[in-house]
């Protein structure tokens, strides 16, 4: 052992200790100061007094949509001094479970599936809404919406954004050139489809590929038809498993889906045979509408953001949408939709302040004014919605005739709603028999 080596070792050993002692506070990155008490901040006065606190939010919303979210509460944040640490992840559904189980739950989370929020409510991890937030929620949203976040009589979440999943996208140009009118009944829809076949256009296109979520667009089809064919009561029974998944009512609905999605005359515009539905991504599926290779595409209102740059989405533009028409008149105008619910895992005062703010109509308007978003809030200012389809969506939700139901697969147990239902429908597109598919899903429904 030579001396220089030992000296080197001693220096190396003591250096970090020195640095540690001196640099601890620097390394832990103390946060920067708060903002002025200007007149702009008057609106946020009731939430002030939490200077220097941080509230963490975890959600599945990423990229541009996440940037808009952060912008929508930036004023609140700078006026109240509450730093909102937002994190969006494509693995939200799985990771939120890991984070909660690992004792590292976020303060707030945006759940796109009420079923998942209910799971945390039942396990005692999620915290029921405090009185003030509950009051906001009850004045802002219809009972329909709040029911989805209610577990054992306690409200666990306030709705955030919303979407409509029964939109049929089409090309207004194609419709007017060929003299098709947007259908208001199911029969008209089929008439138009047949007319398109005669005119040499494949009336429908579809794509259910979505990475590890492949299959969900097909479940939206089944849910839409269930709701229209048998009405909201039977729909609810089906979602709650009060009738079995292979009930004749479901078979009937699936047969009707069959008459469109597995009808070689009707699909798959711009993509090929029926089977191509299984491998076409839902993002790409609608694009042939622009080339008039496909007539119609059933997909949620959020599809507005998927059109290639330069596409005008408007009633007189390149593409637009209508609500899938009713089948049985006695069930009114059914609307299938979805949205996020804000659940809480902490009840610190600053967390409650953020919850309160996010449940106000002022927040909804703030987010809506930034574009590509709408909510089911009763008093949302529709004039703020710039995109025609956002406006259409919000109006559809608000329509007094409308019977709103939440996307059923988001309410079912995840092993079905995000598992066998998706998988079963994918195999069904790929050629499985209707009976076989329904029996398979019924079989997989978790006991108890």
């Amino acid at each position, binding site marked *: 052992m030579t001396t220089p080596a030992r000296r080197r070792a001693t220096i190396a*050993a003591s250096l970090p200790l020195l640095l540690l002692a001196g640099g601890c506070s620097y390394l*832990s990155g103390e946060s920067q100061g708060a903002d002025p008490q200007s007149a702009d901040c008057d609106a946020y006065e009731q939430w002030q007094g939490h200077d220097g606190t941080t509230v963490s939010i975890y959600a599945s919303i990423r990229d541009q949509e996440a940037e808009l979210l952060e912008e929508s509460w930036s004023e609140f944040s700078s006026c109240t001094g509450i730093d909102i640490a937002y994190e969006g992840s494509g693995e939200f559904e*799985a990771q939120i479970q890991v984070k909660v189980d690992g004792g590292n739950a976020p303060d707030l989370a945006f759940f796109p599936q009420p079923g998942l929020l209910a799971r945390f409510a039942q396990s005692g991890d999620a915290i029921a809404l405090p009185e003030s937030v509950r009051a906001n929620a009850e004045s802002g949203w219809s009972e329909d919406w709040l029911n989805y976040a209610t577990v054992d009589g306690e409200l666990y979440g306030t709705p955030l954004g919303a979407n409509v999943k029964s939109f049929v996208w089409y090309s207004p140009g194609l419709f007017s050139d060929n003299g098709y009118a947007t259908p208001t009944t199911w029969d008209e829809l089929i008439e138009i489809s047949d007319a398109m076949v005669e005119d040499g256009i494949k009336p429908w296109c579809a794509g259910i590929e979505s*990475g*590890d979520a492949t*299959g969900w667009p097909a479940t939206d089809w089944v849910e839409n038809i269930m709701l229209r064919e048998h009405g909201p009561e039977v729909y609810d029974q089906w979602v709650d498993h009060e009738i079995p998944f292979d009930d004749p009512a479901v078979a009937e609905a699936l047969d009707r889906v069959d008459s469109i999605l597995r009808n070689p005359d009707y699909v798959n515009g711009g993509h090929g*045979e029926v089977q191509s539905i299984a*491998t076409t991504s839902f993002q790409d599926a609608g694009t042939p509408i622009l080339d008039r290779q496909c007539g119609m595409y059933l997909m949620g209102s959020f599809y507005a953001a998927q059109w290639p740059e330069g596409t005008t989405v408007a009633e007189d533009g390149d593409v637009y949408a209508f609500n899938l028409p009713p089948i049985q008149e006695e069930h009114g105008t059914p609307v299938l939709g979805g949205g996020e619910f804000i659940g809480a895992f902490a009840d610190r005062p600053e967390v409650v302040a953020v919850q309160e703010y996010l449940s106000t109509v002022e927040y909804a308007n703030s987010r809506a004014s930034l574009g590509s978003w709408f909510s089911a809030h009763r008093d949302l200012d529709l004039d703020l919605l710039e995109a025609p389809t956002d406006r259409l969506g919000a109006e559809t939700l608000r329509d007094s005739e409308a019977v709103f139901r939440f996307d059923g697969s988001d309410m079912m147990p995840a092993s079905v709603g995000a598992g066998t239902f998706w998988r079963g429908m994918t195999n069904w597109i790929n050629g499985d028999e209707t009976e076989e598919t329904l029996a398979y899903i019924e079989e*997989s429904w978790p006991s108890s």
Partner: protein
Amino acid sequence: MGFSLLEELPKILWLVIGVAGFAAVIGLLLLLVDRGPKTRRDWWQAVCFLGPALLLLLLGLVYPAIRTTALSFFDRSGDSLVGLDNYVWMFTQPEILTVLRNTLLWVLFAPFLATATGLLYAILVDRSRFESVAKSLMFMPMAISFVGASIIWRFVYAVRPAESDQIGLLNQIVVWFGGEPQQWLLNQPLNTLLLIVVLIWVQAGFAMVVLSAAIKAIPAEIIEAARLDGTTPWQLFRHITLPSVWPTVTVVLITISVQTLKVFDIVRTMTGGQFDTSVIANEMYNQAFRYGELGQGSALAVFLFVLVIPLVLVQMRTNRRAREQR
């Protein structure tokens, strides 16, 4: 919000402190290990060398493995004991049986083909003029994440209707030869084999690098002597190269086998486990985290542990043989 060095400095400082601190601890350990008391020296020297690693493993892997095994006997939330129900479920669901079959296909094909390709390539480019470039080419897939690799191959397998342009290379080749474009990922069991290709593509680089290092370790004199005797390349490979690198081949095979058993990202990104392509690791993740069926997910994980036993036995034999030789 631009890039500011001042904001990055703490990270870099902590990085330097962390690594330097670690190096100091290890250095100190190596200094002290030879000067301790003479009693039970073997024992505490082993503790010094092995202790840090074992401690970490105990915390991060052994305990979770035990916990997982325990959870596999509980229901979905881990509250009530259900005995062997989760295992019964696993072996009676036709779907899970398909999953087990697919995993078998993966383990049968991926390790051998990846190792064979890697070995062949390592020998072919050994001492060639372009060795470093050539090796980099095969190594490149390793530098891409599994998710990136899966995206690349989704492009290769992509299909468009016969009347329009193909965007997938495989179908374009089929079309060039006058065939009809195929839905490659829909038809089982071909689709599983096509997914295996992706893993082979990635892991061959690993096999090549490790085996190439082993080939370089063969003493040059032996090869020269054989060359002077007029040995053909095949004989050289059969009698000198292969026996010399055999222990490393085993290591590579075993390593890739374990990676294969755990394969997850490829299946998830390429097909999401649809069309009967799911494998145990993917199904385990679905059950335990996406479906909230912790018990069933744990049972699948335990089955993975069981599958590694044959590999442990192979390794045991290798160990014994190595000990006899030296």
